[in-house]
């Protein structure tokens, strides 16, 4: 295994583009090192991106949105009061991953690019409308996070491409987001179902919404029908029931020891309702 620590994303992309064997990028390493250790993936070239300037920065843009470096760890997000105040659901999703020790290293981009269907950070990012900059040998492009994972463990990134920045939209007025997951215990487990909801209100009416589900399909995914079910409503019982039905209809989960297809489908509807209620309350000014 060759270890590289380039000083720019262009160099990182060029190293990856010219590599002939298995290549992995290293930020927090909480997936890469486990796979290395378990002999699942032994990279020929391991490219550490943490020597690149800015990868640990959390910056508020002039439009009110946020730019995050790709090596910002979960703990650095949960400790950032202003980011947490703007996007509590997005940050909570990241904060649910692993232990305190894992939070000291694990990153949003790692969770996205590991492309586990059950990654806890991805639904919150999709609901929030996060985009990433992807740097390749031929330049950069902007990609919506929902277009990154394509299948379990697979992404739409081409050979030589690396995610080089994370862009979170401006929170704006009267908005709120939330992420909930179901696990069989209270901590330290993989989502059986995860649901992120982000919405905006005009008075009591939901005017914008994005709903994303995790662990119920080959990738975390946005569910437009679920968002449509609550847009234009006051999130009354009829809207919540329509939301749950749309969430359930979007499920095509696996059947395993942690949850049957029937159970995951049912829980997706329940979590969608609960997350929507929390997001609604936050949009109304609730700070919990």
């Amino acid at each position: 295994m060759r270890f590289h620590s380039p000083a720019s994303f262009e160099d990182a992309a060029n190293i990856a583009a010219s590599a002939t064997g298995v290549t992995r990028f290293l930020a927090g390493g909480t997936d890469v090192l486990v796979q290395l250790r378990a002999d699942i993936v032994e990279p020929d070239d391991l490219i550490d991106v943490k020597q690149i300037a800015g990868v640990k920065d959390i910056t508020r843009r002039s439009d009110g949105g946020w730019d995050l470096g790709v090596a910002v760890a979960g703990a650095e997000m949960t400790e950032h009061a202003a980011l947490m105040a703007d996007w509590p659901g997005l940050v909570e999703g990241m904060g649910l991953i692993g232990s305190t020790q894992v939070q000291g290293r694990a990153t949003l981009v790692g969770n996205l690019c590991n492309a586990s269907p059950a990654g806890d950070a991805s639904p919150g990012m999709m609901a929030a409308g996060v985009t990433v900059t992807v740097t390749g040998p031929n330049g950069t492009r902007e990609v919506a996070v929902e277009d990154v994972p394509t299948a379990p463990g697979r992404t739409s990134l081409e050979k030589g491409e690396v995610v080089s920045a994370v862009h979170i939209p401006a929170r704006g007025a009267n908005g709120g987001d939330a992420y909930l997951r179901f696990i069989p215990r209270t901590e330290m487990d993989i989502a059986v179902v995860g649901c992120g909801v982000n919405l905006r209100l005009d008075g009591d009416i939901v005017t914008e919404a994005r709903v994303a589900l995790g662990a119920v399909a080959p990738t975390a995914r946005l569910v437009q029908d679920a968002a449509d079910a609550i847009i234009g409503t006051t999130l009354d019982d009829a809207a919540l029931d329509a939301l749950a039905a749309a969430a359930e209809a979007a499920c095509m989960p696996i059947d395993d020891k942690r949850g049957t297809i029937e159970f995951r489908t049912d829980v997706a509807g329940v979590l969608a309702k609960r997350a929507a209620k929390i997001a609604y309350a936050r949009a109304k000014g609730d700070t919990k």
Partner: protein
Amino acid sequence: MSKVHVTTTVNGDQAEFLCEPRETLLDCLRDKLHLTGSKEGCGTGDCGACSVTVDDRLVCSCLMLGVEAEGKEIKTIEGMADGENLRPLQAKFIEHAALQCGVCTPGILVASEALLKKNPDPTEEELRYWLAGNLCRCTGYDKIIRAVMDAAAEMRETS
């Protein structure tokens, strides 16, 4: 395979070692620097027995490569006591019999100290969540929790 020369700081002292890129920080601490207090329980970041701090951030040293330690400030269990003088946390672990086999103990002490540095007055719930990534198969955790809460109280009084 070519080895990489790494210069780092461990418990306040400069340390150097040569390692292969795939060797973890835990391997380097134990096998090259002979600091065997940090244990390997699982090797996959689940058990916390290898907990150390890197630039004051609590991490699993099994989930970090030795080469990533370049220029960092590492603190391990070996840096906790002042010679023969135990820190309050360590003394309370003995007083409360908060260990049996002891494999998890260095990691739990390092993790607990990191919490108390950040939050000198944690609730029991905060402490239990903080230590959720430190597994102990002997004690059932209660004695550990009592020892840390008691140490925290004593440290608040003396500070």
